[in-house]
């Protein structure tokens, strides 16, 4: 006789994970308790005796941490595996479940971080920033509605997929088609980042060189070289582009943390102001 989980129990597992994946965070056990909370309804339904319940609950005590949204797939897979174990598949032991969990959390964290906060969110935010020009509420509302709706549907979808496929779920996200899709998504992201940098960063210099005077039609005129104009003639918004490349270089090639880079920029700002390269030219 085979046990099949209620739809309601599976939904409970999903929603506990959805709300609680990081709420009890510590550096020692990042998402372990969130994961356990998701498995409790499943374990309670599948096993009626405490010995089995305790064994299965303990399966989920090792460290767990991944990008929690794409990580709902791992929860789905675990629910599927736990169901199979309750149906007498003795080859599914703690070691196998945790092997799959540990094997997936790293790659999924990488994929999730580069696709969700690394690509999808910046694209949505760029559009939202455009919509909020002049203080319009449209931008924040657009972002909140689109992000929450799409992400909830996405999480539910991959949770269900994970449950259906059990251990085979890996193929869906690491296959050839998926790689091509991922690369292409990253490409849109990179192009939007470029456009974003050009639209939102305005580094400019106040430096001017007085080159004396020259005479046109008998009238004496000042000959001033405005450095910013020269830069703009080379390439529009050149200084902003160079600043971004500089931060990218420090973080990627020099492996500096964002905090260190910010401190370097503080020094550059100060030195730039002192030598007159930067001058916002403001007054109250």
């Amino acid at each position, binding site marked *: 006789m085979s046990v099949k989980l209620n739809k309601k129990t599976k939904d409970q597992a999903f929603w506990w994970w959805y709300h609680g994946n990081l709420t009890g965070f510590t550096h020692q056990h990042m998402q372990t308790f969130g994961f356990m909370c998701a498995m409790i309804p499943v374990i309670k339904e599948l096993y009626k005796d405490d010995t089995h319940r305790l064994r299965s609950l303990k399966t989920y005590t090792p460290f767990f941490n991944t990008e929690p949204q794409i990580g709902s797939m791992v929860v789905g897979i675990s629910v599927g595996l736990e169901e199979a174990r309750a149906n007498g598949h003795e080859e599914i032991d703690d070691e196998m479940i945790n092997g799959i969990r540990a094997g997936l959390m790293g790659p999924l964290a990488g994929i999730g971080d580069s696709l969700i906060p690394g690509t999808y969110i910046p694209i949505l935010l760029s559009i939202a920033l455009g919509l909020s020009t002049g203080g319009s509420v449209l931008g924040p509302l657009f972002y909140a509605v689109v992000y929450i709706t799409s992400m909830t549907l996405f999480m539910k979808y991959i949770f269900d997929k994970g449950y259906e496929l059990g251990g085979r779920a890996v193929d869906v996200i690491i296959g050839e088609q998926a790689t091509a899709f991922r690369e292409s998504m990253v490409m849109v992201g990179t192009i939007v980042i470029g456009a974003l940098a050009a639209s939102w960063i305005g580094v400019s210099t106040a430096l001017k060189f007085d080159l004396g005077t020259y005479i046109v039609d008998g009238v004496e005129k000042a000959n001033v070289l405005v450095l910013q104009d020269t830069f703009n003639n080379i390439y529009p918004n050149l200084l902003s582009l160079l600043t971004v490349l500089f931060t990218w270089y420090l973080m990627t090639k020099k492996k500096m943390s964002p905090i260190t880079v910010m401190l370097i920029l503080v020094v550059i*700002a100060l030195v730039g102001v002192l030598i007159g390269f930067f001058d916002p030219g403001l007054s109250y």
Partner: protein
Amino acid sequence: MEINIFQAVLLGIMASLTSVIGALGTTYSWYTLSRPLVASLVVGIILGDIKTAIMVGAAIQVVYIALVTPGGTVSADLRAVCYIGIPLAVAAVKGANLDPSGVQGAGLAVSIGALVGTIGTVMFYSTATMNLIWQQIGWKAIDKLNYRTIYLTNFIFPLVSHFVIAFLPTFFITYYGTDVVANLKEWLPMDGIPMKTMFTLGSLLPAVGIGILLKQVVQNPVDLIIFFFGFTLAAALKINLLGAAFVGAMIAFLNYKIIMVGAAGKKAAAAAEEDL
């Protein structure tokens, strides 16, 4: 502009609920309510000036547009930026009579955001450390199969950490901080070195946000060409962001097709070889 007790309480509650490990969960709290742009709407409603708040929030958002928090290493927990930084920046911008959508207003907002950003990092690590206490209770509950305590460990006990570490500081800083910010004018003249540096920094800092993002997607310098392409679309061709997203989508679509055709070709070649 003053922030009253009631408003400071609401800001404190928001700071407790949001953040990467906030009480509301990842999708709502960290990736929605902890985005400065979304937070600015909430702050605007609390302070009663939605328009200014959103303009300030938009300027701060650019700096943190690409914040990725791999494996719990948080470079900046945004709840301080959102619920301390934005209210103070709104107060400062209004106090100094600056146009919040102008370069100066945005620069001031970004600098204040960055100043309080470090508070957020401290809050993150302190909350995570304090949660260790609750997890000790949780571990004992597992052996007794005390499901209720396991849920409390993950959802309810951490609220105490949030109250102590996020609510109280946010309340006090926003309640008392506006006086400090309002007197900025006299203490720090606009043509002095500190203010000039702060505004210059405000224009440089968004580059870090973009740089973090770029680091995620560009490891090989050749890929920078894609970034330059996007930059040129906006800087030289003056295409707006949504337009650039569609141009990008078209190119990505072609890229996808090319990869898939290439893969099909490889498969066909392998099959042909087998036939021989």
